[in-house]
């Protein structure tokens, strides 16, 4: 379950990546690391300037990123961690974030931003309805029903 929190952190970069520290080192040395604070701000190729903002809550323009707050990460991922686990994960997640700190030092001003990982675009589907055959087994795996509805604990406030 804790993997979800990690994934969210890892995936928070503009380009999703599963990168090893070794790769980052190679990349960092391939580009001159004369970084600037604008490394995170891309200019979109359109008539209007468009700022791409980061989804880190601890957003910062400096190349040094804030250390992770494991308790709040766990809270956003709806998982509970023991103090021992927090202590165990802290250095691991800090390491992940530090890798991104390194990435941010790369000067990408001259590089056209890739808004997505390298995938073939245009993979669209016809708007033709098809009923999924095995709906019963999906419903069978739902723990609690109230007539035709899923039964869940009462919730009123969305956040």
């Amino acid at each position, binding site marked *: 379950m804790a993997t979800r929190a990690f994934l969210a952190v890892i995936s928070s970069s503009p380009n999703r990546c599963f990168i090893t520290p070794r790769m980052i080192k190679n990349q960092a040395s391939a580009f001159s690391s004369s970084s600037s604070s604008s490394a995170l701000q891309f200019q979109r190729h359109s008539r209007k300037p468009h700022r791409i903002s980061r989804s880190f809550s601890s957003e910062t323009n400096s190349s040094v990123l804030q250390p992770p707050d494991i308790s709040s990460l766990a809270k956003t991922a709806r998982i509970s961690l023991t103090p021992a686990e927090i202590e165990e994960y802290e250095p691991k997640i800090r390491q992940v974030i530090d890798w991104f700190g390194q990435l941010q030092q790369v000067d990408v001003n001259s590089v056209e931003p890739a808004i997505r990982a390298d995938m073939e*675009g245009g993979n*669209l*589907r016809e*708007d*033709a309805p098809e009923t999924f055959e095995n709906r019963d087994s999906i419903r069978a795996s739902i723990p609690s029903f109230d007539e035709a*509805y*899923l*039964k869940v604990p*009462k919730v009123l406030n969305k956040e």
Partner: protein
Amino acid sequence: MSTTLFRTIQPNQFSLFGSTLLRWRRSSNFSVRCCGSQTTTTTQKIKQPSQSRIAPKNHGSNKLDEILRDYEAVIGIETHVQLSTLTKAFCNCPNSYGSHPNTSICPVCMGLPGALPVLNSKVVEFGVRLGLALNCDLSLKSKFDRKQYFYPDLPKGYQISQFDIPIASGGFVDVDIPLEFGGGHRRFGITRVHMEEDAGKLLHSDTGDYSQVDLNRAGVPLLEIVSEPDMRTGIEAAEYASEMQRIVRYLGVSNGNMQEGSLRCDVNISIRPIGQTEFGTKVEIKNLNAFSAVSRAIDFEISRQALLHNQGQADQIVTETRLWEEGAQKTVTMRKKEGLADYRYFPEPDLPEVILTQEYVDSIRASLPELPEAKRRRYEAMGLGMQDVLFLANDVSVAEYFEAVIGKGADVKSAANWIMSDIAAYLKNEELSINDAKLTPQELAELIAAIKDGTISGKIGKQILFELLAKGGTVQGMIKAKDLVQITDPAEIEKMVLKVVSENPKQLEQYRSGKTKLEGYFAGQVMKMSKGKANPALLNKILQEKLNAKD
């Protein structure tokens, strides 16, 4: 407490305050917050409304008026439009409102492990259509992102949406404010339009400690339209929202039905002392499922906040979401926001970027129908008054009907009058849409022509109209079958006039001794004798001759 003050004020008065007393001011730069990200946008240059736009009405020295005079409201709207596609956004499940709960589901929209989303091409097409209709710039490359939050109506634990690169951005929409609210033309900026999926439907049982979920709606495609904070009154906001409904209906991308939730408006509103450039504390209002609710909720909220300001309690205006209570005609706190929610957006790894070619965009642009604003300007140029223009262009089916009638050569003003008065009243009464009317545009044009050339009287025309609306048929057929041709032969009319005059000697005497009002009585008798077919002008002329004749 201020609440006691509110109770004494009728809700309809609020709309008056809103539309007449809040001054129109604007600055050229706005900083807006949307979707948790700070974006700086320059608003569209807009036509400055003329000074005479709304003359502040004099309500006497009402204390609330005085308070409201010192503040202006800043209003932005987020509109969610549910698309009328056949399938959901990322799976083939049927997108059908009102199906048996939890039957339109599959591994993709239920978020089962290993299931992969594939984008529905219609969603892209509808996004481009709406983006173009709202005068936006399109992103030839855009992408999807995951917006994470935990809620029982969201099976995956995240919503697939567009975060930093929406499919369309930087547009505007033009609206006409109805005359009864002061009239005038306005332009409101559109910040962005993005594609996303809907969540399931959550029902809260009144009794019991649980909620019910229907996931048929989970994964249904939406377009979210975010406006610039360009509106200043409840009326402007309601007009903006109705224009969104007209546009999506004209485009055929959604049924725009507010009651069913196919068009949902969330309003962001703050007020500030006139002259202040910074925004006040923003409050969000939800649960607005009618245009009147949009307008009234805003006017209520303006008054509430202005009062707090004026009582030195501005610090009690907090960032929160409030619900509009239709029954009580007020907004109430739904939840207070503790800072911005952290949705931890990141690019959706399971979907490729959305690439549009210029040819594709151009082909869609070429296929766009005439939009409400263009139609209104064209109708105006035809010489129709603004009330007619707004009525006819409001509903695309009515507009098509009207155009079919004038396409058959009917007089523009007569066609507008017939449609707006008797036909509209009939349809409303019978709860029919104009598409259900048995009277074809061809026959309405015939009817107008028959009255114009004097074949039948206007009165007979009305009778025929209602028969045709109910039963169908042709004007010519009905005139022949019922022998309704107008009597235009002076000799025949004279005969009837003479008969009526001779049968009413007492009234004749009264008339001749000065009671000239009795002319109407005689005219009525003659018309009755002719079964309504006598030409009224001829009848009156001959009747006057006979009544005033010295025998």
